[in-house]
C-alpha cells in the first residue's frame, strides 16, 4: 500500500495541518516508508486469532454513577486564548 500526493494533502487537511506544496513529496515519501514498514506484519498469518486489547487479561474498570468532578470553570477555560463569562470564544462557526 502506498499513498499519492492527493492523499497526502487530504490527510493533512483532515488533521487540519497546513502543508505547503513543497512539503508534499517529502511527506509522501515518509508516509510510504512507514506504510512499507508496517506492511511487514502482513507476513504473519493471524487467521482465527482474536485481536489483543490488553497485555494482561483484564476487564475494563467501571465507575459508580456519582458526581465527583466539575465546578472547575476557571481551570477548564484557563488555557483558552479567549473567554467570556467562562465560555470559550472561537471564530464564528455556523452550519
Amino acid at each position, binding site marked *: 500500500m502506498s499513498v499519492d500526493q492527493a492523499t497526502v494533502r*487530504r490527510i493533512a*487537511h*483532515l488533521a*487540519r495541518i497546513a502543508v505547503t506544496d513543497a512539503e508534499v513529496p517529502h511527506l509522501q515519501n515518509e508516509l510510504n516508508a512507514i506504510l512499507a514498514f508496517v506492511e511487514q506484519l502482513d507476513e504473519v498469518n493471524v487467521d482465527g486469532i482474536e485481536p489483543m*486489547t*490488553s497485555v494482561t487479561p*483484564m*476487564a*475494563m*474498570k*467501571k*465507575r*459508580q*454513577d*456519582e*458526581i*465527583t*468532578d*466539575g*465546578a*472547575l*470553570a476557571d*481551570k*477548564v*477555560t484557563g488555557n483558552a486564548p*479567549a473567554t*467570556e*463569562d*467562562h*465560555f*470559550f*470564544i*472561537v*471564530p*464564528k*462557526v*455556523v*452550519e
Partner: protein
Amino acid sequence: MNAPVDPKKLIKGATGDWEVVIGMEIHAQVTSKSKLFSGASTAFGGEPNAHVSLVDAAMPGMLPVINEECVRQAVRTGLGLKAEINLRSVFDRKNYFYPDLPQGYQISQYKSPIVGEGEVLVDMPDGSQITVGIERLHLEQDAGKSLHDQHPTMSFVDLNRSGVALMEIVSKPDLRSAEEAKAYVTKLRTILRYLGTCDGDMEKGNLRADVNVSVRRPGDPFGTRCEIKNVNSIRFIGQAVETEARRQIGIIEDGGTIVQETRLFDPGKGETRSMRSKEEAHDYRYFPDPDLLPLEFDQAYVDDLAAHLPELPDAKKARFIAEYGLSPYDAGVLVAEREQADYFEAVAKGRDGKAAANWVINELFGRLNKEGLDIGASPVSAAQLGAIVDLIGEGTISGKIAKDLFEIVWTEGGDPRALVETRGMKQVTDTGAIEKAVDEVIAANPDKVQQALAKPTMLGWFVGQVMKQTGGKANPQAVNDLLKSKLGI
C-alpha cells in the same frame, strides 16, 4: 423491505404515485447523574462550563473511565426493544473537528455496538399496528454546545453537555409515512420513559431525531436518501418528512436526481435546506479507542436486568384489555404515560374498569388538558375519583350529578362521599317522592299528555321536566318507568 404497499400511504406526484421510505436515528440522553466517561454532573442548565471535568475538556493525559450506570441503562433499553444484547462491545473514536468537540473525536461504538437487532410495535391512530425493526443501539458521548448569537464574529462554546452519555437508536428503513414516523418516535419515547433510561424531554434536546428520507415508485429498489439532522419535536418530524418527500419527488419528476446529503429542517419556512457540504467531513476514520478496553459483561448480568424490568407499555395494554375489559383504544390512551396508567389502576382497583377508564379519560384527562396540567399535578386524587365512581355504581348519585361533584372536588377538594351528604346531592330513589313529581308534571300539562299518546318520543320531554323538578337528583330509570306506566305508553 418490500412489504405490500398500502395505497393510502402513497404520495401523488405529477407523474404517478410515490412511496416514501424513512429510517431514523434517535439520540436519547441516558438518565444518569454523571457523564459517560467522567464524574462531572449531567444536570441541565448549569453555569457555562461548570459541569465539565478535565476529561470532558480533553486536557492532555486525562483518561476516560466508564460509568457502569450508563452501561446498565443501555442494556435495559436493549431489553425493552426486544433486542439482542452483545456481551462484548467496543468503543471507537469518530474523528472530526468542531469547536464544541474538544477531543477532536467522539467516543462512540462503530463495528461492535452494545445492542444489536430488535423491534418496536407501533400502534397507528386508525387502530392498525406496524412493526419497526431496530438495527442497533450504541453508546456514545454528546458534544458541547455552541452559541452563535452572542457576538457578531465569534461563537461561544459551553462544554456542559460534552461527554454526557447518549444512546443512538437506529431503526431499519421500515417506515412509510410521516404518520408512521411520528407514531414510531412517540412509542419509542414511551418505552424509554417506562424504563426510566431517558426522560424523553425533546424541548431540552434530551431526545432528538435524525430522519433519513428517500422516495421510490412502489416496488422499486430504495432511492437515494437525504438525512435531516436534529429534528427536535414529534410534530416537526412529521413536517420534515412531508416537506422532504415533496422536494425529492419534485426533483425526480423534473428529470433531476437526488444527491445524498445532510439537510436541516426549518419549521418557520417549512422547508429543508442543504447544510454546508461536508462530504470530506464524513471521513471519520474510526478506530478502536486505545484508552478503553472492550466493554464486557456476562449473561447472568443481562438476565438479572431482564428479570427486574418494569411492565412495558405493550404488556400493560394487553393486561388492561384482559383484566379490565377496556377497548384497545382506551387501553392505548392510558398506557401512553406510565403515570397515567398508574393513576388509572389506582382508580380501577376493585371497581368497574370500564367506568374507571371513562372517568379517567373523558373527565379527568379532558380537564387536565384544558388546564394544561400533567397527571402528577391533578387536583383530584385517584382515591377521590374512585369514590365518585363508587357513588355512581351504588346508585347514590346520578351520572349527571357526578359531573357536578367532580367539579366541586376539582376546585374545592374534599371527600366526595361527605360532599354528597352535606350538599344534598343524593339521588332520589324513593319512589313516593318521584311519583309525586311525576304526578305534578302530568297534572300541569294536559295538552302535552295528549300529544305524548300520539307521539311516544315526547316521553323525553316529561323526563326532563321531572328531573328539573327534582333538581336532577331523581333516578332517571325510575322516572322513565313511572312515566311510561302513568301515561300508558
